[in-house]
């Protein structure tokens, strides 16, 4: 076993910045009882608390749909923005440009991401915008009563019994291909794995895509659905056993690892991501391998979970733009308005 803070059952009274759990919580959920999204919200609360992240320096953003309602249910001390359908990536990108010091958490769904929002989703990854992008993936539209989304598997049935006739869009495959620098898939029902992955994403600077299969208990949890609790439990294939040691904790190894069985990644904030290999050949720093394995999983009906891809040496979008150390939002007039001599120069050039 690797070390994993995720195994803690009881949270301490306060975290390393002196806050209790309460500021990390949100309003009471209005989603259905048993909805996978509620479990993800709980993991977000725990992870932000345990990582000691200042919630006033977090922004939470979403599009439209059941998933996009969930930012109201966590991080009440963080500014939130529930935007328009499929367009959260643009809003998040703009917000990050305005203040690159904020930690941006985007929550979306499979319709919001892979159907209406696909255009913005792919361009966000291409830019490597520093945003944690969680897809709460249930393969259907809940708020409009159960239509298929673009992540529904070929042959998966709707509640009415109709089978989906189109192949799915694999958001993780896309993410790997298009430049996201942290790509993971998990399951809302796998508390330990999801915690480790969220924490690793918090330690990452760049686009972190987390596709979390999150069953819809009302419209897509029946026999014949490939996004039901039962199907996911039976068909998920974890690539690694994931351990995460935050930068503020001492790293000490537990247990002995045979050489080549563990993959360690030092994250941007100094935290350590330790991936104990369950598949010997899998290399999460290889795009090609990741894409190959994702394709194979789709062919075999597997739900591949774990850290599919990670790269810590790509510049994020705010680095590419070489933004000032002071957030653009906080610049005063002295730095926003060039001096009169600058205007005089231009006027001379145009005269």
């Amino acid at each position: 076993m690797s070390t994993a803070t995720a195994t803690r059952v009881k949270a301490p009274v306060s975290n390393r910045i002196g806050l209790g759990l309460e500021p990390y919580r949100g309003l009471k959920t209005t989603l259905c009882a048993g909805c996978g999204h509620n479990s993800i919200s709980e993991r977000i609360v725990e992870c932000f608390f345990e990582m000691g992240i200042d919630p006033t320096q977090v922004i939470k953003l979403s599009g439209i749909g059941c998933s996009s309602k969930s930012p109201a249910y966590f991080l009440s001390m963080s500014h939130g923005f529930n935007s328009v359908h499929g367009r959260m990536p643009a809003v998040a990108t703009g917000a990050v440009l305005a203040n690159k010091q904020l930690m941006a958490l985007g929550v979306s769904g499979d319709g919001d991401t892979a159907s209406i929002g696909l255009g913005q989703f792919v361009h966000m990854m291409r830019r490597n915008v520093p945003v944690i992008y969680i897809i709460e993936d249930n393969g259907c539209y809940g708020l409009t009563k159960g239509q298929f989304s673009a992540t529904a598997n070929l042959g998966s049935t709707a509640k009415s019994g109709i089978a989906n006739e189109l192949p799915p869009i694999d958001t993780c495959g896309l993410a790997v291909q298009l430049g996201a620098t942290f790509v993971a898939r998990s399951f809302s029902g796998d508390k330990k794995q999801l915690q480790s992955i969220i924490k690793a994403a918090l330690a990452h600077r760049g686009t972190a895509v987390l596709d979390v299969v999150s069953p819809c208990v009302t419209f897509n949890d029946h026999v014949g659905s490939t996004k039901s609790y039962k199907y996911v439990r039976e068909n998920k294939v974890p690539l690694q056993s994931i351990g995460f040691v935050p930068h503020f904790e001492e790293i000490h190894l537990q247990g002995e690892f045979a050489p080549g069985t563990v993959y360690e990644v030092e994250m941007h904030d100094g935290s350590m991501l330790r991936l104990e290999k369950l598949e010997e050949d899998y290399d999460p720093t290889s795009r090609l391998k990741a894409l190959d394995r994702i394709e194979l999983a789709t062919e075999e009906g597997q739900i591949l979970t774990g850290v599919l891809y990670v790269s810590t040496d790509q510049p994020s979008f705010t680095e590419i733009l070489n933004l000032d150390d002071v957030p653009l939002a906080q610049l005063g007039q002295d730095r926003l308005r060039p001096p009169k001599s600058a205007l005089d120069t231009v006027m001379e050039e145009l005269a």
Partner: protein
Amino acid sequence: MQAVNASPSGEPVTVPELEVVNDFSIHVATVNGSGSQSSNLVLLRALFEMGIPVSGKNLFPSNIAGLPTWYTIRANKFGFTGRKKEVDFLVAMNAQTAHEDVQALEPGRAVVYDEPLGLDALRDDLCFYPVPFDPITAAVCPQPKLRKLVRNMVYDGVLAALLDIEMEEIRKGIERQFSTKPKAAELNWNAAQAGFDWTRQNLVKRDPYRLTRMDGNKGKIIVEGNAAAALGAVFGGVSVITWYPITPSSSLAEAAQGYLNRFRTDESTGKATFAVVQAEDELASIGMAIGAGWAGARAMTTTAGPGVSLMSEFVGLAHFAEIPVVLIDVQRMGPSTGLPTRTSQGDFLSAATLSHGDTFHPMLIPATPEECFEFGAKAFDVAERLQAPVFLMLDLDLGMNYWTANKFDYPDWDIDRGKVLSEQDVERLQGDWGRYRDVDGDGIAYRTIPGNRHPQAAYFARGTGHDEDANYSEREDDWIRNMDRIQKKMAGARKWLPEPVIEDGPKARVALVAAGTSHEAVREARSQLRLEYGFETAYCRVRGWPFSHATEEFIADHDHVYVVDQNRDGQLRTLLRRQFPAIHDHLRSVCYYGGMPLDARTITDAIVEREGL
């Protein structure tokens, strides 16, 4: 026959038609992509340096190379530099259009043309000047590959010889145009000089047109409206620009990028105090600008009509969630892809109430480069005060053409971020604040900006129904209260928008109302009406929407008010009728929607007909 020159001072000036000095149009017809832009700019620059009030308008196709394009220069000693409907001096370089161009001329006009086109056979009432461009070019440009590029510079020399343009100014113009390419400058100068020499040796001047140095451009600049608006944004403190390429707005974003690189890069660190992002589409560009505005940047996007249509949903969100953002719409001719390289004022209605539900977006409407600069800067203050999307409405004529303007004044006002609560403010209020509470009674609530470290600073922005504290609400009373407050806020918008410019006199019973680039044409049309018909008019140029009370009083004070629109349906008039229903029967329409920059004669003729003059 006497030519009447319209003088803005009101006194007719008559001169014999033997000479028409500093008051005519030059129309150059070329093939798109043949390098004529350089020749035309050199020509424009030379006239400007000679102190002659001048404008240059590019009438170009949606095409990279091969299709016909025209460049029309208006020189006018009285300062009327709107497009002149009649072409006085044609330079016919394009075989595709030469015949039609020549047939359209009024008698007595002049034509310089490429000799092999044989245009002189078409009419016997014009002054024709055949010029053998190819042999002249070949003699000064030994490399055949380069001849196509310098051939057009030959006509600058020809025109200089025929119209008395100072060759020294042509030379300076060429040096300026090719400042980084001395070899190209030399080659072009040789071409211009060859054209000049050939003309002096071979042609006898028979037309009345002549240019002479005057003092009309002291302290002036030549600039495109897009560059002016870009500068305005830069000096207005823009920090995030997100955009998607679309004619005719692309050069605005690119100009802004250039100025920001120069003036807003920190000298010690080399880091940028701005972000400019070319987005993947207009949905993303407005979305990014809204995200940035929400998070405290001075954010804007630039676009044109089709982009405005795409931004519709997001602009509704920003209106309702109350997020400041500036949209610059450089209008082109729609609907649909329409005439993408032709000018129009066709977006007034769509911009004013863009998106579904009850929406309302203030507009600033500049008519000159000076106003592009000033309003381009002030739009950010208006947006942040109102916490709302604000439109700056240019058009292709203003944005992409070269205008003579006064040097811009450095802003004498401080940047205004509107009602923003800091950490200390939230502390002072002991956290008792609500994002949508109307504390001051003006409909404008206080906002916090993400990153505010006070534990009670956060709120949840959303496009769904919300109460005064930004909580989700579907309650009827919450919804109505919120909509009424936003309406109250917008009713107050006019005090921050530029007031109309009104020119009135006791004798004027008929008036004109116009906005944007209609101004140049209206100015001249009023002069034509006065001098040719003895008909006095009053004029109200609106510069912002919602309109000011002064506009309402002005309309009420005049029997007939002609609203000049550069669209088919009278969109400006529709907005006036909507805001001032009681006086709508005073309003009449003059609508032009052919895609050319509006000319004075079109307005004059319409009023003459309607008023029975």
